[in-house]
């Protein structure tokens, strides 16, 4: 027995030593030496070899965007003799899949469609290719046609690191057959003592409209409708619904500075603004809205929201441009609201908290917020067929093809307009199933926000996913606890504040401050 004990101990010690040596051997940073491929990429265009497009290209993509790849895949394969292999994953596991590849460098995919909000760590960590050499070598069609805000999100430290694919911001969607009915308007005025604006001008109006249209059959279809719907599901994108409200109460529009168009951190001290009265007010407002929403609201991710709203269950919704696309397709997406939707910018607020004076300022105002930023295509450093992947990315995002992807002709693709030309070609949108009046309103609502020079940029610094949805730390989790009534808005904001302070310290205070100031265009 004693002999066995020593044998087992020896066995475990050896295993421990072996493991420790492996763990601490460390991995050599990928960027130390330029690879042969990288050297080749730096060759002048005239010396660059032709790209072999017959190679298989593996594409990592999530659910709505598969529509785009599926559309162009057979044509690409027929034209080039190549092969497109698709790795389709749900949004919830896309990040995990992406990071697994970046850590293991197995070359499991050549090109991936990912959200901009993750890119601080991806680009900062050197996991994606710098695309400027590829652009020099192979060109990029219509770069000047890409809207400035969208160009900005493809860049890191001044270099283009991703191909644009999507222009993203939240809009207000409202049911015209509710808000524009004179009888209902008269009843509303009688009840609340004022008449709302169309689209609603501020969140106070949204609250009253939502309450007024909640839980009765205002469109006479035999079913109960609700007041308001938005993305509220945990581990999804609920934080952007909150930021829609938060932006209005926390800041005022202006050239980004510490006190204008700034909603996340104090730019001088890097102190999170989460405990500010503006955040608490926004948290209170959004918690209140859940009372006038469908019972399944906290289960609404983007798919559930879109399906529910186009099936006609609410009077108002807030979402990216995708509801507009699904609205046009009664057969494909079960839309019962084709032609019944109106579009507008986000509601503003009647007041905002001025941190400079530490006082509330009573003033009707609106802040445009570039939620999420959009989806882009990146090419991982370890991708086996980078040149072919770049060519395929360009093929999908050139002006002609991207127009078909955003205007509804290819259905719901998750891509919203992002080139100037997308806004100047209403005829394509009409072919995509839109009414002429509808498309005018829709495109105006989006372009007004994208062109706003004072629009608040989303949080685009290393650790953004962690600030938003990180383990043990997130805005997402505490927001969900507030929405479900488990904790008060004040407590939710305090918890977020503590988490954000800790994350900033873990990431490095000075580094985070520099990145944050840079993201607002401050020196």
């Amino acid at each position, binding site marked *: 027995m004693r002999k066995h004990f020593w044998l087992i101990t020896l*066995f*475990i010690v050896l*295993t*421990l030593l*072996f*493991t*420790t040596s*492996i*763990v*601490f051997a*460390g*991995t*050599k*940073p990928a960027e130390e030496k330029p690879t042969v491929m990288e050297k080749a990429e730096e060759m002048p265009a005239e010396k660059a070899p032709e790209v072999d497009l017959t190679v298989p290209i593996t594409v990592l993509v999530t659910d709505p965007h598969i529509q785009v790849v599926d559309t162009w895949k057979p044509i690409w394969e027929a034209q080039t003799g190549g092969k497109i292999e698709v790795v389709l994953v749900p949004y*919830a596991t896309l*990040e*995990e899949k992406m*990071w697994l590849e*970046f*850590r293991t460098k197995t070359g499991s995919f050549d090109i991936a469609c990912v959200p901009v909000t993750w890119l601080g*760590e991806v680009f*900062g*960590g050197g996991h994606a290719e710098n695309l400027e050499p590829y652009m020099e070598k192979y060109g990029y069609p219509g770069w000047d046609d890409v809207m400035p805000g969208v160009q900005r999100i493809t860049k890191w430290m001044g270099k283009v690191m991703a191909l644009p694919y999507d222009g993203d911001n939240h809009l207000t969607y409202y049911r015209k057959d509710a808000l524009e009915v004179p009888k209902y308007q008269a009843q509303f005025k009688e009840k609340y003592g004022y008449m709302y604006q169309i689209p609603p001008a501020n969140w106070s109006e949204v609250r009253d409209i939502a309450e007024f249209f909640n839980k009765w059959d205002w469109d006479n279809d035999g079913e109960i409708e609700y007041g308001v719907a938005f993305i509220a*599901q*945990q*581990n*999804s994108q609920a934080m952007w619904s909150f930021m829609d409200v938060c932006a209005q109460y926390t800041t005022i529009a202006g050239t980004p500075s510490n006190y204008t168009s700034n909603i996340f951190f104090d730019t001088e001290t890097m102190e999170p603004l989460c405990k500010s009265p503006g955040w608490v007010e926004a948290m209170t407002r959004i918690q209140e809205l859940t009372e006038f929403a*469908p*019972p*399944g*609201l*906290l*289960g609404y991710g983007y798919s559930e929201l879109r399906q*529910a709203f186009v099936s006609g*269950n609410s009077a108002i919704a807030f979402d990216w441009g995708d509801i507009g696309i699904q609205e046009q397709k009664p057969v494909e997406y079960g839309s019962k609201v084709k032609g019944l939707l109106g579009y507008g910018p986000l509601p503003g607020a009647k007041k905002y908290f001025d941190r400079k004076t530490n006082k509330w300022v009573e003033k009707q105002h609106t802040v445009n917020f570039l939620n999420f930023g959009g989806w882009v295509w990146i090419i991982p450093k370890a991708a086996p067929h980078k040149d072919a992947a770049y060519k395929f990315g360009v093929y999908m995002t050139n002006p002609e093809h991207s127009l078909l992807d955003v205007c509804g002709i290819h259905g719901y693709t998750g891509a919203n307009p992002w080139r100037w030309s997308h806004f100047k070609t209403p005829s394509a949108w009409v072919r995509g199933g839109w009414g002429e009046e509808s498309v005018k309103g829709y495109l105006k609502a989006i372009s007004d926000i994208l062109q706003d020079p004072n629009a608040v940029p989303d949080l685009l610094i*290393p650790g953004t*996913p*962690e600030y938003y949805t*990180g*383990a*043990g730390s997130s805005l997402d*989790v*505490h927001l*969900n*606890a*507030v*929405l*479900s*009534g*488990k*904790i008060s808005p004040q407590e939710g904001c305090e918890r977020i504040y503590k988490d954000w302070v800790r994350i900033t310290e*873990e*990431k490095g205070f000075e580094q985070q401050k520099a990145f944050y100031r840079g993201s607002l265009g401050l020196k």
Partner: protein
Amino acid sequence: MASATIGRRNVKFAFLLPALIYLMLMAILPLVWTLTLSFTKWHANIMPKPEWVGLDNFKYFLFQDLRFWHALGFTSMYVGISVTGELVLGLILATLLSQKFRGKNFFRVIYLIPMACPPIAVAFLWRMMLHPDIGIINTMLTSIGLNGVKWTTSANVAPFTIIMVDIWEWTPFMFLALLAALQSLPTELYQAAAVDGANSWKMFIHITLPLIAPVIVTISLIRVIDAFKLFELVFGITGAGPGSSTESLSFYVYIVGMKWFKLGRGSAASWLFLIILLIFAITLISRFKKQRT
């Protein structure tokens, strides 16, 4: 003679060696690897290699991270209620279906179906049925004039929704094991008890339960260990929400380690999870052994 003994011993070790190597690679090495990692800080998407931090990760979970304790609390409640419910229902079903009546084989097969379904499929099936807006269960409730229930979107109801689905899925396991145990009981004891005038309830309490107690402990232990690893139902039905009201320990470990690549913390959480399970299992087994002796 001595060389023959050494030769025989070598042969013995030669036969054991493949199994030992396999065990080392597949079981011991990962365990030791994660133990080593648990003393490091390795945020793998920004740090190229781990940094030694000693016991910091364990201290973090034990003394700072309320979410860890909340996940442990929910998991413990879930295990307690669901395993007890499954045991009681399984025992009732096994007792009923061990009687002689026509068509009992049909019911036996029907009751086994939930256990045969993949857990993630069960999760999505129930997620759709329990959808507060369009789910069939709320539709049925409202059609008879009752209010719909926020099965998955209320922080108070959602934990019990997970428990309900687990009971639906795993009661058949208890039922199957207990049915086999009941059918293996000797009939003589019951005949003797009947002669002594014992009624069915007394026979059940004084004969059946003591005889099947070892089976009950064994299957409860198996279920407790399995239930502690709750993941698929949470992932598929509630996504751990609302808030973190249905966040199980293994789901939390997954988020820390796999979703955010905090490999040091994830490993520490995994080890804490393992230690908690071991303590629980050893306590249960030793208590049972004491009772037996």
